Each structure stands twice: as C-alpha cells, then as structure tokens.
C-alpha cells in the first residue's frame, strides 16, 4: 500500500508539473467563448443550449460551464448520442466521430440559428472549424454558413480566426491573419 501511495504521489506530481491545457478543455472554453462572440436572433427560450455530439471528453469538459449565463440566458449543456434533437441547439459541437454525418446535420438544421462547430472538418459544411496548428487550437469561420443560420460574428472573433471564408466566395481566402 505504501509503495502504491508513493507511486500515485509520483504520477500526480508529474502531471502537476506539466503546466498545460488539454485539447478538450480548450475546446470547451472556445465553445463557451463563442456563445459570447456571436449574436443570435431573438430567442424565446429561457436557456441557451450548447450540444456536444460525438466527443465524450469535450462533453465532460463542457460540464464545467453548465451553471454560467450568456446574455441573461442560463447555459444548458446537452451531451448527445444521436442527431435527433439538434434543432434545439444554439451551439452544436460535432466531434470527429460524427463528422461523417455533417451533410445530414446540415440538412436537418436548414436555416435554423444553430452555430455548428466541428473538429477537423471541411469548412464549407460548418460555421466554425477547429484545428490544431503548432500546439495551438485555431479556428476558421465560414461567413456563408453564419449568414444561412442568421448568426452574426462579432468583429473581434473574425480578427482572431485563422481563415475567414467570405459569403458567396467559392474559395477560402485568408483574411488579415491576426497572428
């Protein structure tokens, strides 16, 4: 038992010395920020729904934001297994395991004001695509998709994006890259 305890102490201290943020904690923090950085059309709902599909770890990390508020609405985190209720989501995060279903998700949502955020997905099918670049979590914004969903990104979010795909542009253009 003593040896085991020492071993745990050792492992934990190893972990403690690594001053790092995990990818899924960071993704959850981005989603929380996106709730403030985009403007949704007037909603009749009392709650603001952030849905996580196809990524258990981001879902678990997102739980930390469950009690927070965004523009007066209470944030509700929904960890989904299927696409059935996605029209109720204000933000829908699509994890790598569900990226294959993006065409279906897109057609289910139609012009619904849902901000779709996906991990390592083609930008044309989502509003925001996340990617890892040089140990940083970067994101691209698709304005055409935002317009379709009737969502307005605030100026500073576009400034921090790696790429911004303009409305009705056929190609992705690099915007004034901020960094």
């Amino acid at each position, binding site marked *: 038992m003593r040896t085991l*305890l020492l071993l745990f*102490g050792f492992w*934990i201290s190893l972990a403690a010395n*690594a001053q790092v*943020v995990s990818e899924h*904690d960071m993704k959850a*923090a981005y989603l929380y920020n996106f709730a403030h950085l985009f403007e949704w059309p007037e909603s009749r709902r009392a709650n603001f*729904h952030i849905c996580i599909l196809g990524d258990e770890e981001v879902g678990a990390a997102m739980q930390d*934001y469950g009690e927070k508020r965004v523009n007066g609405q209470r944030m509700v985190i929904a960890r*989904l297994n299927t696409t059935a209720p996605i029209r109720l989501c204000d933000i829908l995060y699509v994890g790598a395991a569900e990226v294959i279903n993006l065409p279906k998700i897109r057609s289910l949502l139609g012009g619904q004001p849902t901000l779709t955020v996906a991990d390592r997905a083609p930008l044309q099918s989502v509003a925001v695509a996340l990617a890892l670049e040089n140990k940083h979590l970067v994101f691209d914004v698709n304005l055409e998709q935002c317009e379709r969903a009737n969502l307005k990104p605030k100026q500073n979010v576009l400034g921090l994006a790696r790429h911004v795909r303009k409305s009705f542009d056929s190609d992705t253009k690099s915007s004034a890259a901020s960094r």
Partner: protein
Amino acid sequence: MRKEKRGHRSRGCRVAPSRLAICLALLGNLAWAAGQDDLGAVPFEQLVRREVVSGSQLARQISDSPAAVAIVTADDIRAYGYRTIAEVIGSMRGLYTTSDRRYEYMGGRGFGAPGDYTGRIMVLIDGYVTQDSLFNQAYIEESGLLDLALVERVEYVPGTGSVTYGNNAMLGIINIVTRKGGDFNTLQLSGEAGSHDSYRQRATFGKRLENGADILLSASSMQSQGQNLYFPAYDTPSNNHGWANGIDDERNKRFFGKFSYEGFTVEAGHVDRQKTVPTKPMKLAVFNTPFVIDDENSYLNASYEADLSLQLYSSSRFYLGRYAYDSRRTINDPAPDAQRKHRAEWWGVDQKFVGKWFANHAIMFGMEYRNDFRQYLSRSYFYPDGRIDSASGGKDAFSRNTASVYLADEFRIHERWRLNVGVRYDKPSDLDGNWSPRVALIYQPTFQTTLKASYSEAFRMPNADDRAFYRSEATPEYVAAKEFVVQHDLDRQKRITGSLYEYRRSKQQVSLDNLGNYAAIGNSLARGLELEFEARWDNGIRTRSSGAWQNSSDTNGRDAVNSPNVLGKFQISTPLPWDAVRAGLEAQYLGSRLTAERRRLGGVALANLTFSSERKWHGLSASFSIRNLFDRDYEVVSPFTWAPGTGIDALRMDGRTYWFQINYDL
C-alpha cells in the same frame, strides 16, 4: 519548496493509510491548483495564444465502466494475425485460454477451472449477450459467431458486470464491436491456407450509402483436416498405441449481416461448426473412434437509439437467440452409439434511458425482460442395429423468464471527482429475486491521470445444465469484487495501467461425497495485481506489455486448479523498411499451474510472429503468421479426471503452425 510540502503529505499518508482518500484529495488539489485555472475567465484574445496538449493517441475505452479496460483494435488483429476471439483474449492483460481440443476456455483472476465452459464471463457482440442458455458458454474459437475480419475492436472490462448485465457477469465482460459497412466500402474476397490442411474463404460486402445508411454482409467458411495426435495416457496396444488418427478435422460456416440507419440498427449472425474430437472426452468413450460435435449459434439483435430531448437518451432493443448442439460418439456399452441433442431458444427486450436533467448527474434507468422459453437437454443410446436403449438416456426440459430493473447514477461531486452508484434487480421465474449493487469512486487529479476504486457484487443463476445436474440443490452463486485502478498517460503516446483486485466467491457447489451429492456451501478467494504499459511512436512502432500476479484458492482453501500465479504478455509491431510490410511479434508467458490431480505443469513462454501488408496494392493485401514460433512442446490443464495417474490431467498442444492470408478488394 513544493516538493517539500508534497513529501510531508505523503508521509502523513503512510502513517495513516486509512486516510487514503483525504490524502489523494490533498495531493490532487495541489496538482490541480498548479496545472489548471478557470479557462472560462480568461479573455478569448489570451486564450487563443495558450498552448494545448492533445489527448492520448492510444485507443480509448468506449464502455463507461470503473475498470481498467484492455482494448484490442482491428489494427492489432491484423498486425498480430489473430484469427479467433480466443487468440485476442490470450493477448490481453491477466487473461489466458485453455483448449481441450473441443473448445477454448477463458481464464483469469481465479476463474477458469477446467470444465467451466467459459461460463462465468460475458461475451457481447454490439450489446448482445452471446452465451447460450444451457451452459452459459461463450463461444470464442471457430464456434464463435464472428469472423475476426468483421471486428473493429474487442474490449475486456474486468470486474463484475451484474449491475449492468445481470446474470453471469462474474469475472468480466468481453465487448466486441463490429465494423461498419463503410469501413469496407467494397466487396472483399479473402482466402487463407495454413498448417494441417486448413483453409478459409470469406466474401464481405460493405457500403455506406449517400443517405447515411450503412450495410454490411459477410459469409465465410473454414475447413481443417487436423492432425494425427499422440496421447501418452492411452498408449496401449488396444488403443492404437495412443494414436488418434484422422479424427481432428473441423469445419464451420458463418453468416453475418448488419444494417443501420438513423439510430436504427438490425444485425444478425449465424455460425455452424463441426469438430471431430480426438481426445477421449469421457470415461465410457472409446479412444480413437470418431466423436463429432456440432455447435450452432444464431442471433438477431434490433435496436433503436435516440435522444428524445436534449436531456433524455433512450435505447430500445429486441433480441432473439438460438443454440443447438448435436454430438455422436462411440461408448463402451451394449448400446454403443451415444447421441446428444441440446436445444435452446430465447428472446428479450431491453429499454434503457439516460436522463441528464441535473447538471451533475447522469441517471441511467431501465428494464429488461428475457424469456428462455426453450431449454432442452437430451441423451440417447442406440444398439448397433439402430434400436434405442429406452432404459438409459434421459431428457430434461426447462424454461425461465427473468424480469429486471436497473438504476445507476453518475454523480459529478466536483470537477475531479465522480461517484458511480448503481443497482440491478433480477427476478427469475424459478428463483428468488437478486440485487446486484456497485459503487465506484473515480478521481481525475489531472486529465492524464485517473484513479478508480470500486466495490461490486455479481451473481450467476444455475443454468439448465446445472438444474439437470444438481436438481434441487441448484442455487445461485455469488461474487463480491473490490478493485482499485490507476491509469496514467505519461504523454499522448504512452500509458501505464495498474490494477489491484480481490474477488470473494460464495455459494459454490461442493462435492460432499463420492455418491454425487453436492451442496452450495463453498467459498473461495482470488487476489491479484496487474500492470500494463502501452506505447506508440510516430514512426509506426506500437508496443504493449503486461504482467499479472494472481493468487487464488479453491473451496478447500488450496491453490486453485489451472490458475497460474504469473502471466506475462509482450507485443511489439513495427513497419519494416520501405513501409510496405509490418512485422508483429508477440510473446506470452503462462506461469506454472496445477492440474486436477494437483500436478504442477511448468511455465511456458510462447511466441507468435506475423507479417502483414501495410497498405493495399491494386486492392490486394496479405498476411503471413507463424504461431508457436519456436515450436515449444507444452501442455495445458485438461478437464479429464477419470483415470488418475495416467497423465490425462494434461493435454499436449500444437507445435509450430503457419497461416497465409490474401485479401482482394474488387
């Protein structure tokens, strides 16, 4: 400075080990304070500049279980040339399989006594419980339902699982996940040839359609001539000097189909295996005469899952299963033609919900109804002229239906602490109801480290065979398990897992005399430690090694039979130069173990080597395997007990064998 503090705290822990939880909390909070802060409070402009570490690249468990899950993926299956679920199990931490040239039996953690028919574990295929309802046997060799080319991953969840699955989940759960049609996206033809005149053929069609529907269809077969085998225990002139000639053949046919669309999945499988048994498997059987067994398993599993709302998930399931066994052997009797015919059929429904109405709770609840409406066992004996010997033989017919309810809550006490509490109640029609509880505490001081402590109880109802054998003495058997698990990702590509466990079994059947009287009064104990290291590197090398030390006693308090004290596994696979071929080397050590006659068989180390093509060339891929690379001569514990002192308590296993497989995608 911080080091000092931490040292002081761990000394405190050593003084009072009972304050383990408090100590861990202190240590954890220290770690947490140093490593994390409230990311939500950091302005976004600063957040985007933070460095991140991505999660582990090693396979992650799907099962939501407070255990140290072991995972074998489709890549491993290819790299190490596994051809049966038994071979996959044999590669896993703390597990081993034993063959009696009829079936393979799984063992580990004190389970796996000879003749146990792999009867105290569960093998699930996509959530369907595959054991038959006569012997509770899980079929893991060529009589198993799946061809391994259709397997995406195999998870071994150690520890009892009655809280989730009810009856029979005593040692652990083997969870098989099948591949999707989209993983093939073509028609694949496969052919294999191997030692002892063995051949395999398979055709698999898989497709993912535009609308998201996925379809997978597969048919396969195998035939093997087998070997002439020498059994020293029967070496007399009247027994052909111990040689069983031309009676080791085996063949099977398998069919599998799966269709899924929008949360709806229906899948069905069928296997029919015939094996000629070269041993003398019972006292009256005549050595070196054909004894053919035929095992047939079929199932259908239809499920629908949906999130009914943002907070309520539902999964509904209907299943149907069938098992048929036929055997024919020659016995030393005036009516020498002994035939057995066993049949079982069952169906069931399961409705599960997961409610996430409360921020820190995930509440799972549901009910299952299972109807084992046919459990039929028969033995009959025929004279050489075809007349039945009506005086001997016998028939037993049973049935049982079981209604179950279950409830579990995963309570997030704190960012780093979770409490998992669950209970399942099963009420079989012929027995008293039974509660199976589990409580587990999970602690994640950092995202790389997880600690889990659990206590659970599981039970096993007497199956149809037990009811026929023990009659009124047939009663449920129980196990209470304690387990402590540590998992730590050293970095994204390296992981250490440690597990400490204790299983206390009770109400086991004990023989009272030599007249066939039994009573369910036996208790036994198994304790052990398992350690595993797993890593992969960017250059494509993957490795896994594990050691297990176990100490288990039987109902008499003596060392348990066929329970090695040490098990070791080592696997490494690496791409060879030019990246066209991967080599996979596997070594397994099976420590010394006792036979039923309490003879100790020496430990044995075995190696297997596989070469497989890394990528397809014009749709072609191939692999070549050598099993028992160094041609080690070794014995395993046999279930035979009727001729003490002759050596029938052990069976010699195969020497070196080869397999070559070629696949072609049309």
